């Protein structure tokens, strides 16, 4: 057992330096099982070794923050004795290999992160990025991922209320499946993973352990010999039914005082859950692997410790509470077993069939894991593009129809109709709006939720792109009337060992941090997914942001549908006609260039607070924030949502008409207010020093744009609807 070949070490993803660090920490060579344990604990996924140094710069505290990063999910106080628990996580690589199961188990994993902390999950969101629509794999991947998310979320009964879908060739070989979950817990009963104290029983509950998802490369190693083919590693298969039982049983047990610490078995299963519990609690842990419930015969300690079988939990019980736990798990038909106990040794000791098979100090596995300050080249931001350097389209109407029917802007109804977005009967606003609204059960308060990032902006300027992701999330929450509370993030990038990629990561994190600080929007949880590269080509930098806000009174909320004839449409915020890195530039003009729209965080805050105050005062009838596709696209979405047209008359523009209509300047909203309240809104804007411009009136069955020196452009709603709704179903049907 003593000499592990350099090949085996390399197959475990450890560098020679890392290996000597292990030998040094142990004062001897590790055996294969111990090497496996180090390899997963020191993986990028568990140790954040490339990103931790930069993640530390993010603002993570605030008056409402109960738990920031470091726990299974972030916890934010909602008042009235409740807290929201939320996090976003990626399942990118598994979803590329097997889209249905990969996405399904991604949902399962993030749900466990939330209910491990004692929260009942109440909402899911999915942020998805796929390759070019015409790439041969894309359609299959889209269909599989969407049905996998549906298959898991629908079954467990947590509504999927929002998300994002983008297409870009940079994701051809590396799709992104980021799933966010939010849950509600009593704020004084949050469960964490720190297992303090010795002599407490360690309980395993949930599905039996199989050979699922054991790291492929390690399979070639000596231990498997001739039967290697038979024992081939398999992808994880999700079982939402067992997860539902696990959820209900855990919440039932959490209502007693049986649980001292709890941790779900996610990536690196039994290894990371047991190490984390003991390391965080400053204790030690001893497991007898002969008692682990196994699905297959002849499983080795190595396989048990590295298995990624789904739907499993590890908990430390108060001594004497075993009977209570057993009764509840029996009721829910779940396998449970005491597999060990906590100690005070600061070590993890594993035994199997009466022998000690691993004996490791916890420090080097957890807190003292490697931490890198990788070389990073600061990116060169793309230069600003003057609005008049982009020629006007020949046919404005055609351009608008093409844009709303494009892969990135068309209606996502085909996706979200497959998600049960109403289960729970608390969904007040499902997918399709700015932010989703989910009522806090039994109250008149609600959560608002959104997921945002614009990868093409991040590619052009990672710092501004990072800022923009946070600002857009904040804006989406604001647009429904919510007070933004906090964010989670999912940093998806290429290979951090390349200084250019590391430069993107650093700049994006700095951008996120700057915006989060300026908007009082702390980062309370997150996830990092690196090495998203195929054949040396990385994905667009994609720091996805998930955000939660609070509506303290459901009666003061806004929707973006145009409803009332004669209402006055106004544009909040300043328009310069910024076309750099815009969808118009890419999809209509065929150019991917220019700086993304600059994000002025104080304007963002001022304009947003102004809009929220209008909503709270009941002065507005419709609100929509502006993002991809700019003003024209926002107006189409508002018209279609309410099945009402509008007449827009634009005069004295600061830039060419097409730049005004399609520019993606930030910090903007369209609002509609009653005709007799318009003057008051104008006055209020003046007082708040918020730029405001009248656009026209609501009514009719067409969207009409008029300006000096041009014949009015009028498009009937059914034409807009066909263009907007048509793309997705057609793409899927081939």
């Amino acid at each position: 057992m003593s000499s592990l070949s350099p090949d085996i070490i390399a197959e475990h993803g450890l560098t020679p330096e890392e290996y000597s660090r292990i030998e040094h920490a142990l004062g001897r060579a590790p055996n294969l099982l111990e090497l496996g344990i180090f390899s997963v604990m020191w993986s990028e996924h568990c140790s954040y070794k490339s990103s931790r140094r930069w993640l530390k710069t993010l603002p993570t505290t605030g008056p409402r923050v109960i738990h920031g990063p470091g726990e299974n999910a972030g916890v934010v106080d909602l008042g009235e004795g409740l807290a929201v628990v939320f996090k976003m996580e990626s399942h990118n690589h598994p979803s590329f290999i097997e889209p249905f199961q990969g996405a399904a188990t991604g949902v399962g994993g993030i749900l466990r992160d939330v209910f491990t902390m004692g929260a009942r999950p109440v909402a899911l969101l999915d942020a998805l990025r796929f390759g070019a629509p015409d790439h041969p794999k894309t359609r299959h991947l889209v269909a599989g991922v969407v049905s996998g998310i549906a298959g898991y979320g629908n079954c467990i009964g947590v509504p999927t209320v929002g998300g994002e879908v983008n297409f870009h060739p940079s994701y051809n070989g590396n799709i992104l499946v980021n799933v966010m979950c939010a849950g509600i817990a009593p704020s004084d009963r949050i469960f964490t993973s720190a297992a303090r104290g010795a002599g407490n029983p360690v309980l395993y509950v949930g599905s039996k352990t199989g050979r699922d998802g054991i790291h492929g490369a390690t399979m070639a190693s000596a231990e498997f010999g001739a039967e290697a083919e038979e024992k081939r590693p398999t992808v994880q298969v999700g079982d939402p039914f067992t997860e539902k039982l696990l959820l209900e049983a855990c919440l039932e047990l959490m209502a007693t005082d049986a649980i001292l610490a709890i941790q779900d078995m996610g990536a690196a299963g039994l290894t990371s859950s047991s190490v984390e519990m003991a390391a965080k609690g400053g204790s030690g842990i001893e497991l007898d692997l002969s008692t682990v419930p196994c699905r297959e015969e002849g499983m080795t300690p190595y396989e048990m410790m590295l298995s990624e079988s789904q739907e499993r939990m590890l908990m430390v019980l108060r001594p004497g509470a075993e009977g209570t736990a057993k009764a509840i798990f029996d009721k829910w038909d779940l396998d449970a077993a005491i597999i060990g106990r906590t100690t005070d040794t600061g070590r993890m000791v594993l035994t199997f069939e009466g022998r000690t098979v691993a004996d490791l100090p916890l420090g080097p596995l957890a807190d003292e894991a490697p931490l890198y300050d990788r070389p990073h080249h600061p990116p060169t931001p793309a230069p600003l593009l003057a609005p008049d350097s982009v020629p006007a389209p020949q046919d404005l109407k055609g351009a608008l129809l093409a844009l709303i029917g494009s892969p990135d802007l068309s209606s996502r109804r085909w996706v979200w109709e497959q998600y049960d977005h109403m289960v729970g009967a608390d969904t007040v606003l499902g997918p399709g709006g700015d932010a989703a609204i989910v009522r806090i059960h039994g109250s008149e308060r609600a959560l608002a939720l959104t997921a945002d990032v614009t990868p093409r902006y991040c590619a052009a300027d990672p710092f501004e792109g990072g800022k923009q992701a946070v600002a857009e999330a904040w804006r989406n929450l604001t647009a429904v009337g919510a007070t933004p509370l906090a964010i989670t993030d999912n940093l998806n990038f290429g290979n951090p060992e390349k200084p250019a990629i590391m430069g993107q990561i650093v700049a994006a994190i700095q951008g996120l941090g700057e915006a989060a600080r300026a908007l009082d929007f702390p980062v309370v949880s997150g996830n990092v997914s690196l090495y998203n590269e195929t054949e040396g080509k990385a994905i667009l930098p994609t720091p996805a942001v998930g955000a939660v806000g609070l509506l303290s009174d459901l009666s003061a909320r806004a929707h973006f549908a145009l409803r009332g004839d004669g209402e006055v449409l106004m544009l909040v915020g300043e328009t310069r006609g910024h076309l750099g890195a815009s969808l118009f530039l890419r999809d209509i003009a065929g150019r991917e260039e220019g700086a993304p729209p600059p994000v002025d965080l104080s304007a963002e805050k001022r304009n947003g607070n102004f809009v929220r105050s209008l909503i709270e005062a009941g002065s507005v009838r419709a609100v929509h924030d502006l993002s991809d596709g700019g003003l024209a696209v926002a107006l189409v979405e508002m018209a279609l949502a309410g099945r009402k047209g509008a007449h827009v008359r634009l005069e004295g523009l600061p830039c060419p008409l097409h730049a005004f209509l399609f520019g993606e300047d930030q910090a903007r909203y369209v609002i509609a207010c009653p005709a007799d309240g318009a003057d008051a809104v104008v006055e209020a804007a003046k007082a708040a020093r918020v730029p405001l411009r009248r656009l026209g009136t609501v009514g009719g069955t067409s969207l009409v744009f008029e300006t000096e020196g041009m014949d009015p452009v009028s498009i009937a709603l059914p034409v807009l609807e066909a263009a907007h709704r048509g793309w997705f179903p057609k793409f899927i049907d081939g």
Partner: protein
Amino acid sequence: MKARVHVTLKPGVVDPEGAAIARSLGRLGFGGVEAVRVGKVFELALATSDTDAARAEVEAMCEKLLANPVIQSYRIELAD
């Protein structure tokens, strides 16, 4: 002619449906069921009557649509 395609989970892949059925059978009083695994069968009516062509065609269908090669294996039977 007719083709029958049997699709089963590869060994080692967890079968939650089979496990739930096995438990349910136990509860219904069928004591001796040690394990259940669930597979699918597709019965295809084919226009061709050329066995070799049919086999090649059905194999291609399995690879492209009927089976998920990552977690499933398949077996083809042909009959007139």
